[in-house]
Every structure is written in structure tokens, then in C-alpha cells.
């Protein structure tokens, strides 16, 4: 799982970019997903709504939801993720680096941090 985390006030303030840069970034993200899909490596990819739409939910004593939000000041938040099915961690790192270099303002690579985590699997069949 490749998670794209960006600081709350960091470089991923896409809304304030010039139109050309936003369009280039969107184009990159779309062709990135298409390419992974065509290579048979993509399992899932989702973009998430911003932290100002997020709610933190906890159960009260009676189990009813208690919601809390919003978090525009959050230090870091998840903006989207990809789940890829690859043979080696190295390949996952390679894909993550490609995503990290997504174009930002003026087409300059963002080089944002992409967190790579392994998705846990079912126990092997012979263990059952």
C-alpha cells in the first residue's frame, strides 16, 4: 500500500496552483493509475477528500457515535493511496518514487513522501 501523506500546509496546496500546473498534475495522476492498471499491478487507488471534511468518530458508552472534527490544522494527512500487487518490495519502492515525483508548480517534481506498507495476507494454506 502506497500512502500519499502531505503536511497540512505543505506543498500539496493544489487549489492555489496555476491552472496549467493543476492540469499537468491531474494528467500525471490519471496516466499513472492507467499505466499501473495496464501492467496488472494496480489493485486499488483512491483519492480522499480534504481534512476539513474529515470526522473523527468514537463510540460512546452506549455505542452511539461521537463525532469530532474538522482538522484543517492537522500536521499531516492522507490524501490518497494506491494498493499495488508486485513481486518485490523494490518494485513497490520504484512505483512510490514515481508517484513522489508527480509534477507540482512549474512542472517541478514534488518529491513528496510516499509511505509504503505491506498489506497483511491470509495465512498460507498449509498452515490451516
Amino acid at each position: 500500500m502506497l500512502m500519499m501523506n502531505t503536511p497540512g500546509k505543505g506543498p500539496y496546496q493544489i487549489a492555489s496552483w496555476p491552472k496549467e500546473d493543476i492540469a499537468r498534475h491531474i494528467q500525471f495522476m490519471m496516466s499513472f493509475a492507467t499505466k499501473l492498471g495496464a501492467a496488472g499491478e494496480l489493485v486499488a487507488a483512491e483519492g480522499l477528500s480534504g481534512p476539513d471534511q474529515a470526522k473523527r468518530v468514537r463510540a460512546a458508552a452506549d455505542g452511539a457515535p461521537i463525532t469530532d472534527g474538522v482538522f484543517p490544522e492537522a500536521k499531516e494527512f492522507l490524501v490518497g493511496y494506491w494498493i499495488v500487487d508486485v513481486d518485490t518490495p523494490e518494485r513497490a519502492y520504484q512505483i512510490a518514487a514515481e508517484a513522489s515525483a508527480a509534477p507540482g508548480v512549474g512542472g517541478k517534481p514534488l518529491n513528496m513522501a510516499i509511505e509504503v506498507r505491506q498489506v497483511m495476507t491470509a495465512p498460507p494454506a498449509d498452515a490451516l
Partner: protein
Amino acid sequence: MPAPTDSDVAATIGRLLREVAPQVLGVVVRRYRDFAACEDAVQEAFIAAATQWPGEGVPENPRAWLIQVASRRITDHVRAEAARRHREAIVVSLIPPDEQIALAADTGGATERDDTLDLLFMSCHPALSPASAIALTLRAVGGLTTAEIARAFLVPEATMAQRVSRAKQTIYLETLKGSPDSPAKSSARRSRAPLTRIKASGVAFEMPEAGAALGARLGSVMHVLYLMFSEGYAASQGSEILRSDLSGEALRLTRLLHGLVPDETEVAGLLALMLLTDARRAARTGPAGEIIPLDEQDRTAWDREAIAEGVALITETWPKGRVGPVQLQAGSAAVHDEAARADETDWPQILALYGVLSRMSDNPMVALNHAVALAMVEGPAAGLARLDEIASDPRLAGHHRLDAVRGHLLERAGDRTGAIACFRRAAEQTASTAERNYLLLQAARLSDVDRQVPGGRQRRTRAAFSK
């Protein structure tokens, strides 16, 4: 002529099965009421048909054959279940005495119409959530497999199977409740005694004759079909092909419904609305799945045939009686589709249609469209004033379309800063990636003007001077 190959025969049988599927299921469900069990039984009958017919030939009345086999299966199934759970009482009551021994083959005719309609009514039961109703309708009436429906909704097959099975359970419980004024309803809720439950059942399956009851049930079917259509129409990138199948299926089912109740003018209106909207499919997204708004679409890519059919349908439907809200929307879609260029759109006519529509319906989306039409005819200030009237509607609170429309109108009114803020707020509120991208680009297009390279600014200054 060459002899038909095995695969030709299989394809013919497949088509035939899909065609009669809703009727067969409708008959069996009406007789035995347990939706889940009936569906299983019908599926078994279909498997039997698919394996036996290629060798033995298609029976003279395939529908009756399938009903008979399914009925036998369900009889067996109910008996086995009951024996296992010691619920013999249910078996006896569930199966009418004259049908316990042999089942009269259904002879078709007028009942076919009722059977499919029944099934639609049941699958679009108001007790179901829209998502469940869509899934169940696709499954029971559309004949799609659970895997196909899961793919269209981008959820795992197990999730969709669970959704469908919960829907069936809800339907079953609803049918046990009976009609609202049935005295058995309360006792069915109080008592879990099988006999009371059986007595209470049945009412829900009776066909409403006409008038308000039929209208209300048709209303929920139309609602589900429209949501199914929109689900497919709002295709997001990557899943485009599968999702447009959903619109195609909604169109097919609406056509089927229109054929069943040709005198229902709102159903005709719904079919026309779908045809006129779907006609723009090829032009409404760009190569990367980006949204292209109506006034920027390449109108030569619109499906002329679908437009002609939709226009003809709405034209012949209007004079038939009181024009309802769906027909008005279809009328507005027709006006858009008939304009060869965006600036040739007959906005006064669209404004008139939405004027009637907003008096007739309390739908905030209708009010939003009314504001757009008003702005096109009387200028952005009139549209913005209308938006202010509806902005306090709690159903629009936090809805991105309100800010998106306001952004467009503010831009036309010359308030660039206000428009940028609206587009950005709308971008934060939408749950659709394609829409968010579109709105972000609108905001960026306007703010680019402010950070314009000196050349751009100079040009603007010169233009101002030359006035």
C-alpha cells in the same frame, strides 16, 4: 444455410432465458413469496434448461416449463427446510392446496405483463435503500449476476452478495407485513406465530389497479431506475465502460416498463429524459475522463438517433394529459439537444419549463437549475438573487452544486474573487474526483488572471483604456 452450431444454440437459449427471466421469477415469487428461496429455485430451473434444452430441444412453452421446474424445486426446498426446522405449518400454508400436487402451467397472456411489473415493484420497494433496490433490480429483473453488479459498483463480490441478500430479506419481511390498513399488520409484528404471519402475507403482492396506489409504486420504480441511470452516467475514470453498462441497463428496463404501462405519461417522460441525456455521453468527457460542460461539448458527437427518439417520444406524450415533473425535465433536455450550438439554446423556453417545474416540485436541484436558466435569460444578478432564496434550504447545506453554480454566476457578474472562492469551496465539497478536478481548474483559470505574466496584464490595461 449451414446447420446452427452448438454455440449458436447456446446463445439463442441464453437470450431466451434472459427474456423470460423476470416473468418466471415474478410468477414464482407471487406464488411462494419467499424471494430468496424463489430466486434460488428459478436459477436452478435455468441451469436445468441450459443443460437440457440444447440436447432435447426447447420446449413449446419455455416459460411454463421453467415455472414448473422452479415450482417443483421450491416445493422440495420448502419441504426440506420445514422438516429440518420443524415448521410444517408454514409449508402447508405457503403452498395453496391446489398447487401442492401439480402446478398448472402458466399460459401467458396478460399475466406476463403483471409478473414483470410485480417484480419491478418488489425490487424497488420503498423499504429498501436506493443502493439495495438498484442491486436487486439489476439482479432480479435485469438478470445480471452478482459478480457483474459488484464490478459496476466497484465493490467486492462478497459485499454485493450481502447487499442483495439483505435486500431480499427486507422484501420478505415487508411482504409479511401486509398492507398498511390490514389489521393483520400489527398482529404480525406482535406475534411470531407462523400462522399469523402467513395470514398477514399476500396483501403486498396484489397489483394496485390504478390511480394513486399504482402511481406511488410506479414512482418508486422510476426513482430507482433514474438513480441506476445516474450512477452509470456519473462515470468516474477507469471504470467508465462498466458503469456505462449501468446506464444502458437502466435504459433497457425503463423501455421495458414503458412497454408495460404505455399510458403512464411520466414513465414515457423518464424514457425520453434518459434517451436525451444519454445521447450526450460521447461528448461529455474528454480523453482523460475530464468533465466537459454542456456549453463546451462537441455537439456533432451527440447521438442524433437517440435525440430523435427522445424528442418524438416527449412530443407525443405531452398532449396526453397533465404534464408531470419528469416530462418537464425531458422537455428541457430536448431543448438543449435541439440547439446546434450552445449560444442557440432557447433559454427562455428552458426558463419557462423550470418555472413550472419549481412551482410543482420542492426539489432543491430543480431550484438550482431554475437559477441557472434565470441567469441566462435575465442576467447573472437575477440568478444570484434566486440562489440567495434557496441557499438556506438545509438540503443544500454543504452541497457542492450550490457553490459551483454561484461561482459560474459570480464570474459572469464580474466578481472574480468571489467566483474563485466559490469554485474552491465546491471543489472541497464534492465527492467526485472528476468534478473536483473540474472545479479546481475553474478556480485556477480565474486566479491565473491575477498572477498573469506582465504581458497579460498590459493587454488588459490597454483594453480598458480603449473603452
